[in-house]
């Protein structure tokens, strides 16, 4: 067999393998939906597509699919930015100074295993229902991956990089801005990517809590109360898609800006 033909075959084989399971699930779903004939348990694919294809249409007075998705996205970004603004400087401080590290380490180790959603009742008690509570819970989810990766990245900056800068006359602040930050940036970025993923999971769950009245998580929960399983499934698909898109954007920046990490030695 000639080489290019072999390549074409292998590309098709790969594509076939990738799509095999989703296609099987869709076919199985449709068959099952027809057999069950109960849209309150498993709606037909058509009715889910109906919702997905009209993303701007208001759903039972709760706002549209896209509108709610953007509300959720806004909350995640707010919580994520707050978490990053705290975690990155703290991680750099802990990575550079043993004193700061020892001071914060035990406290943070204690907080780390607590699932972000365990903070929900406390957040409600402290901040009432609203954006601040959301930001708090989301921030809790995003904080630790960003902190731990920043710490890792700062510790991973090669000693000779720092010494070379010292020889060339760098002061501590310049070492931070010219060596530590760019050297640790790829790892910090990885932390932000993981942190955003967790924040996205948190927002959806947090929006399902009582008292919320907007966001994609709320829309799903409310659709359950109205027995609209097709909206639930459409909402879940939108959550997944947004997660994939954001993660992809993070990956694109990573590949463009931090190419040197893969290629260095």
């Amino acid at each position: 067999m000639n080489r290019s033909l072999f390549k074409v075959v292998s590309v098709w084989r790969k594509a076939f393998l990738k799509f095999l399971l989703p296609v099987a699930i869709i076919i199985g779903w449709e068959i099952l939906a027809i057999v069950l004939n109960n849209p309150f348990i498993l709606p037909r694919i058509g009715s889910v597509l109906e919702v997905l294809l009209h993303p701007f249409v208001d759903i039972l007075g709760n706002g549209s699919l896209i509108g709610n998705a953007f509300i959720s996205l806004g909350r995640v970004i707010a919580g994520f930015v707050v978490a990053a603004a705290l975690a990155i400087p703290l991680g750099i401080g802990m990575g550079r100074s043993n004193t700061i590290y020892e001071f914060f380490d035990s406290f943070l180790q204690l907080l780390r295993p607590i699932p972000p959603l365990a903070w929900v009742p406390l957040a409600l008690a402290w901040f009432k229902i609203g954006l601040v509570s959301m930001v708090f819970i989301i921030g809790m989810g995003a904080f630790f991956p960003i902190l731990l990766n920043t710490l890792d990245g700062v510790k991973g900056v090669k000693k000779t990089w720092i010494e070379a800068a010292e020889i060339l006359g760098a002061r501590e602040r310049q070492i931070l801005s010219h060596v530590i930050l760019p050297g640790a940036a790829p790892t910090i970025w990885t932390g932000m990517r993981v942190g955003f993923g967790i924040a996205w999971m948190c927002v959806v769950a947090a929006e399902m809590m009582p008292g919320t009245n907007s966001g994609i998580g709320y829309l799903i929960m409310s659709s359950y109360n109205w027995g609209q399983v097709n909206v639930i499934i459409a909402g879940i698909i939108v959550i997944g898609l947004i997660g994939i898109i954001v993660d992809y954007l993070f990956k694109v920046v990573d590949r463009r800006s931090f190419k040197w990490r893969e290629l260095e030695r």
Partner: protein
Amino acid sequence: MTLIIEHLSKQFTKNGNDIVDSLGDINVTIQDGEFICILGPSGCGKTTLLRIVAGLENPTSGKVLIDETVIDRPNPKLGMIFQDYLLYPWRTVNENIMFGLELRGIPKEEMVDVSQKYLELAGLSGFGTSYPYELSGGMRQRVAVVRALAVDPSVLLMDEPFGALDAQTRNRLQHDLLEIWDKTKKTILFVTHSVDEAVFLADRIVVLTPRPGHVCEIIPVVLTRPRDRTSVEFAKVRRYVLDLINQPKCSFS
């Protein structure tokens, strides 16, 4: 410029309580414009010696003086080239060369001029916008050398800079280094474990003993440059150094 290493010694504490003598009583006076090679076996403390001269480590006793100033921290008169991980991989070649100038707040146009000049000196015109990972090992070393030169130090400290390169590239870079040395009139303190390299490069070779390293002998190399590695005279000096490092006074302390 005069660089004086005076009664320098260094001890390390190992595993908390074992004291290891790394360097014992080093005395060397280096004149302006000299090319000095420090030759010694692995683990004799020659890298430590260079790091102390650079101001990256403090001696246990004794001192290093440059023009009567005691060195206890990095000094703008001293530039250093490391054996490994020399360049910042996220910076282009130009940005690497300009790094020291940037730290000093030199205006952009001036930096670009200096960078251009040193890029030519390194024989790398046209590679200014390349990244380190796009260059060969030898090219990276050239960039590292001119990055150190760009801030115009009086002394260049080099820690086995060509150790990781293949023989051909290594010879080529030694040759180019001498050319740069000749053009810039810098003083060079060059650490190596290769007798051949020391004889090819140095005005004087400082031979260190194994740990704790101290000066066994300082050998002036009076061969004219460019030196021919295959010549009889070269072989004679080489033979002398090789014999010396096998003698008890240089191999045991």
